[in-house]
């Protein structure tokens, strides 16, 4: 019985290896995310806090709630696309995102580095987006 399990596990590894040989594994970044960091900077600005929640849905639509400092959460929506590790998107008003992002997953966090200058990295953690935003 033990031997059978080991064989199955090895087979699985081999299969995975075969897939790896065919190309990179597609990242699964669907789900609900909360911004928790700007590179190494705090998301606290003076006495104001930046709150960003995004829901990247499986049908390649997204919803975004942001509160930059004061005021209410403002909601945006639109579509997103992931080509290998490059994430792009468009708002529902037809405007492109301000930048594309190179994305990766690290210990469950979504790491997004903007491609315009490559100097700013944003970290999102998985979350349940609060209701009533």
């Amino acid at each position, binding site marked *: 019985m033990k031997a059978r399990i080991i064989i199955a596990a090895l087979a699985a590894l081999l299969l995975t290896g075969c897939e790896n040989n065919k190309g990179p594994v597609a990242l699964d970044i669907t789900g609900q995310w909360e911004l928790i960091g700007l590179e190494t900077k705090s998301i606290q600005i003076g006495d104001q806090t930046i709150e960003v929640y995004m829901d990247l849905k499986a049908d390649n639509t997204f919803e*975004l709630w942001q509160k930059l*400092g004061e*005021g*209410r959460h403002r909601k945006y929506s639109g579509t997103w696309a992931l080509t290998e590790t490059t994430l792009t998107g468009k708002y529902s008003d037809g405007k492109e995102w301000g930048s594309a992002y190179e994305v990766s997953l690290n210990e469950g966090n979504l790491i997004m580095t903007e491609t315009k200058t490559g*100097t700013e990295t944003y970290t999102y953690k998985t979350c349940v987006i609060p209701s009533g935003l």
Partner: protein
Amino acid sequence: MIKKLSFLGLMVAGLALASCQETLNEESLNAIDARSKIVHTRSGASATSLLVKFSSEPSETQIQMLAEAGVKSFEKVFPSVPGKEELEKRFGLDRWYSVTIEEGRDIEAVALELASDKRISTVEYDIYMEPACDRVSYPYEGQEAATRASMSELGFNDPLLIDQWNYYNLGDKSVATSAYEGGDINVKDTWNTLTAGDPSIIVAVVDEGVAYSHPDLAPNMWVNEAERSGAAGKDDDGNGYVDDIYGYNFVDGTAEINFDGTDYDTGHGTHCAGVISAVNNNGIGVSGVAGGSGKNDGTKIMTCQIFSGNGGGLQTMISKAIKYAADNGASIISCSFGQPGSGFQGDASYTKKNAAEVDAIRYFEATKNNDIVDGGIVIFATGNEAAPYASYPGALNDIVSVSAFGPDYLPTHYTNYGPGCNVVAPGGEAYLPPWTSYKGMILSTLPLKIEPSGYGYMQGTSMACPHVSGIAALGLAYAKKLGKKYTLQEFKNMLISSANDFDSRLNGSKSYYNKIKPDLNLGKFMKKMGTGSIDTWIFMMKIEGVPCLIAETGRNQWIDVSDYFGTSSVNLTYLSVEVSDEDKAALGLAEDPYMQYGRLYIHPTKMGAGKIKVRAVGGGEIVGGADNVGGMEMTQEISIISRSFKSSNGGWL
């Protein structure tokens, strides 16, 4: 003549005797020095009353001597209220006295004699002010409209709300062929989603008496419970006034408020009160800006009667009314009156000539009657003389002064404009084609004896003023809900900068039905209508808090600041842009940011965040001051985040 001299002689003797008893070396001033203490002239003033201010509080003996010297009455202008003594002293209200003389006496001689006494610093003729309205009302006539909002759209079930274009202007051509969709105060969404008022907020209507029993106002009237449940004829609450249940009649010196048309009342106060807080969603009549949602949550109206038909309007009455409002819980005073064609050169000359009233205004501004703002908010009409400046006292630098637009979202033929005007609101306008109804004016409540239906139309900056008072009340209500707190200056800054662009429509001229009035040249109003047209929703969003603006790192760029200064920010005059060294470093600013064409120019060189303080003039090109008439200084602190990119719609991604 002999009688007059003997009266004066007695009075002077009284003063001299008092001098001898109080300060032995006191001497009377010469006539020139004495005259310099007299402000105004007998023209346009009461023939029987004067206001005098002592340099220090007079003794009982001095007062008694004057009272016995032939003056008909000599009494304190302002009753002292327990617990308010320190504030009263700070603004000198304890030293103001009202002198009444017999009819037929030479008031100029009396004024000179009083001014000759060194203990008296000011002798003020008790001048009249006028309502900022033509004092004519027109009946409501239910008429079919070409374009009307549905009741469900408007949110409230008040049947006449559909004729209140001032709240929701759909460009109905039966109101005016030039009616402009969106030319309103944009209050609908605030009502439906944020707030419609709060009963803890009291607005004092300083005006003709308010018809407190009007069915569309009664539930929103402020009630002095101590007096209502107290003994008749007794000052139960010790505020200096007897039986004052809904306010006070300062014209007749009684708690009986007049509003029923028996003394040529026009319904002016009742009309203004309806704009502020007619009861909403009660299935009858009109809506008020801050009249609640039909759940006993409307802003309360206090009636401070200073006009009674053709009477009233004296400085004494106004000053007393303003202090009364402060002492009895009002957070806002709505004042649709002023000195027409006042022609003052600046605040100093007005303050010198109307010191009792200005002292009372300062006292009101220093009185905190809610947990939101640390002082009272004073709102005035700019006046109806089509003058290129605001009338005083509205033109005073620290007062919000309101000009008027019509259903065409254009200046009205009567509105004052220019220096001293802070913001513009609906005041209504007659004679706009097709002129088949009165609907171009403002529909509100009227006393039943004046209009049996209880509703009718009026026009004037008098009607524009209570719109802003109502919006200010909504702001207090919403801030209370959110737990926000402000200084008085911060709150006024937010209020007058919550405005929409108005200047872009000021091209060419506008015409009136059958040329009843000459065409109105619109160009003359350019940059002279304050910060623009007041917008309730923008104000509420400011109370929620204005989000940080995004700047792009590494680029010299301009940033739209309309979230802070309104959509007419391009038309404002900016005084300075300040940024601390710390914030400069945080944003990596290589050069100082500046304002041009209503935009903030900034060049951040690194990712970061900081705050930039921008000072602007709220109405006009210069800030009003002692020696000039001008706008109110507005300071906004703009929060900036610098990133390497930004999306064109403000989205974070």
